[in-house]
């Protein structure tokens, strides 16, 4: 060797298919059935409108803090679009459209976001994990699921989501490394929205792309325009096929932007400029995809208003149902349920402690 440059065997690409001005690279354009396109659009729009409604409800004090997803819809939905019902999705906390695509219930989300544990209930056969608050921690669960799916010789694939900030956590590193070493069927989808709360990307990492972090693990990486559903769809489709075919994990970086606050407790004007937000508003994934559908003749303006109306009704109905449900008395003792398969004696005593207190209070109330 004496002294020489090494160029690692890289499998690293960039891709954009439908740009912000509507220009379409027809060579790369994926062949998606019109029906699927419309379903994707419906989900994207539902996510956008529901997100707006959640914000509204939060501002009225009718639900608690939550992380809105405006601007991210294409970045996660384009990827999740490939998931079969038997595949696994391991979300972080900003994948509303993907969750809806996977069948999440609006009503449950409302109940969850209003501080009711009932809203987090999952059936035992759920293949979408609950939201993971501790940043990056969920990626390791995805590795375990994917390992198990492989061990069981299924063709299931796991897809996990995380942000640019998450790439700094040790868990990101360990998950990427384990996934590569075991060559598990796993697709890592990073929604790089340039900010982790107030920390801009250049304070998060010195690399120009996040995709290149794949090189540290011997894994293919791809950076795509995350506001272009088509790019994300194509990249994820390839990664899913690779994973399903035994080719191991892939890292996909979807370059996108959070068009809104980090959570409803956040004030983004403290740390980023209006111009920056405006520039990204011009790249909003929703109108971009809608224009594509219109140009393609898949979606007519008239249909759109019908869809909007339908979505509005669906959301309103869910809000009504959720609020009716939450207006019912809800058992404080629920907190003692489901901690273990069998409740230990001490916990049962504590449960009785609270039950007695509630009885006394209720009696006091009736007596008084």
């Amino acid at each position, binding site marked *: 060797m004496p002294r020489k440059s090494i160029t690692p065997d890289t499998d690293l690409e960039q891709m954009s298919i439908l740009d912000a001005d509507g220009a379409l690279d027809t060579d790369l354009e994926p062949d998606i059935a019109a029906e699927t396109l419309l379903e994707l659009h419906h989900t994207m729009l539902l996510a956008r409108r529901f997100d707006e409604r959640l914000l509204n409800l939060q501002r009225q004090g009718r639900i608690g803090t939550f992380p809105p997803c405006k601007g991210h819809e294409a970045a996660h939905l384009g990827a999740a679009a490939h998931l079969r019902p038997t595949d696994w999705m391991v979300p972080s906390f900003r994948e509303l459209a993907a969750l809806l695509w996977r069948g999440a219930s609006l009503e449950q989300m409302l109940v969850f976001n209003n501080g009711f544990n009932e809203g987090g209930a999952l059936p035992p056969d759920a293949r979408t994990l609950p939201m993971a608050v501790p940043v990056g921690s969920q990626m390791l669960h995805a590795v375990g699921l994917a390992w198990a799916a492989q061990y069981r010789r299924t063709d299931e694939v796991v897809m996990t989501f995380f942000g640019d900030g998450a790439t700094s956590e040790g868990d990101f590193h360990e998950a990427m490394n384990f996934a590569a070493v075991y060559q598990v069927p796993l697709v890592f989808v990073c929604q790089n929205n340039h900010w*982790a709360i107030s*920390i801009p990307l250049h*304070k998060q990492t010195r690399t120009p792309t996040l995709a290149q972090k794949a090189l540290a693990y011997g894994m293919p990486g791809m950076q795509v325009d995350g506001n272009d559903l088509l790019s994300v769809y194509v990249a994820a489709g390839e990664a899913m096929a690779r994973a399903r075919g035994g080719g191991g994990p892939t890292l996909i970086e979807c370059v996108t932007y959070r068009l809104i606050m980090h959570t409803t407790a956040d004030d983004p004007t403290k740390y980023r400029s209006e111009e920056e937000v405006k520039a990204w508003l011009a790249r909003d994934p929703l109108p971009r995809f809608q224009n594509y559908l219109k140009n393609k003749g898949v979606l007519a303006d008239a249909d759109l208003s019908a869809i909007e109306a339908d979505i509005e009704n669906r959301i309103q109905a869910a809000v009504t149902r959720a609020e009716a449900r939450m207006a019912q008395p809800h058992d404080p003792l629920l907190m003692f349920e489901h901690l273990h398969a069998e409740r230990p004696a001490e916990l049962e005593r504590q449960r009785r402690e609270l039950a007695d207190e509630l009885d006394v209070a209720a009696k006091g109330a009736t007596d008084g």
Partner: protein
Amino acid sequence: MAKRTMVQALNLALRQEMAKDDRVIVMGEDVGLDGGVFRVTDGLVAQFGEQRVLDTPLAESAIAGMAIGMAIYGLRPVCEIQFSGFAYHSFHQLENHAARMRWRTQGGLHVPMVLRAPYGAGVRALEHHSESREAYWAHTPGLKMVIPSGPRNARALLVSAIRDPDPVIFYEAKALYRAFREEVPDEEETLPIGQARVAREGRDVTLITYGAMLPPTLEAAERLHAEEGIEAEVIDLLTISPLDDQTLADSLAKTGRAAVVHEAQRSFGVGAEVVARLMERAFYSLEAPIARITGFDTIVPYFSREKHYLPHADRIAGRVKDMIKAV
């Protein structure tokens, strides 16, 4: 003197210590321009610059581990962990190193760092944002564990923590951040770490608490006084470890009865240690078993049920009445 919230009082402590001592470096996620998600570090970067107020990438082990290196060098890093529920990522750095470096090197190197973290429930937060796990740190030899209960002592204790030559875990009750204001003087104030204070004098029963549970405990004491003529002495621990058991034992010698109130889950918590210390140091004063009035051994429920989880004045007063009637 100015009336200040706890957030403002903590900000004052940081600002003044930074102005006085260029070894003091504030670091953590979003502590710069954003001023921290609770605004405790608001304005510091404007005043002191990015070299003194370090926005970090999103990695808690690194925040703690890097601070250890800075402290060994001779700086006085004050780390913020955004919520105490994410401090476990840094557990190994604290346990393996911060707590041991002085001991390992027989006094050669030491780690004068502070790790601040908001803790506790009651602010309608998401999962993982409501825990009170001070017992983990208190059980770690080599660490100090401090929890203030109001703006004035928060400021004074944070100054002491920054000046302490050893690592201090400093938990701040989110529920108290803006709950009330207190006179907090501009002039320097410190409070000794390791010293509890009698927050209310009384002769009938000793109520031992800290952090966000002080207000409901005081309220319970007032109610006991008003409703039953019971005079409760309320002790505010301020420091969890090292625990000031002398103040506790002295009070028990007077009252003969005690309850410990905390929002952390009960089993293997701070209350257990309080009971054990009093067993060792005041057994023959005990006229009744010491009660633990605490959070339950569950996860803190999502916010619609927080009020049932958290000890409140009614519950505290009720349990104390029962205790006194039982004898």
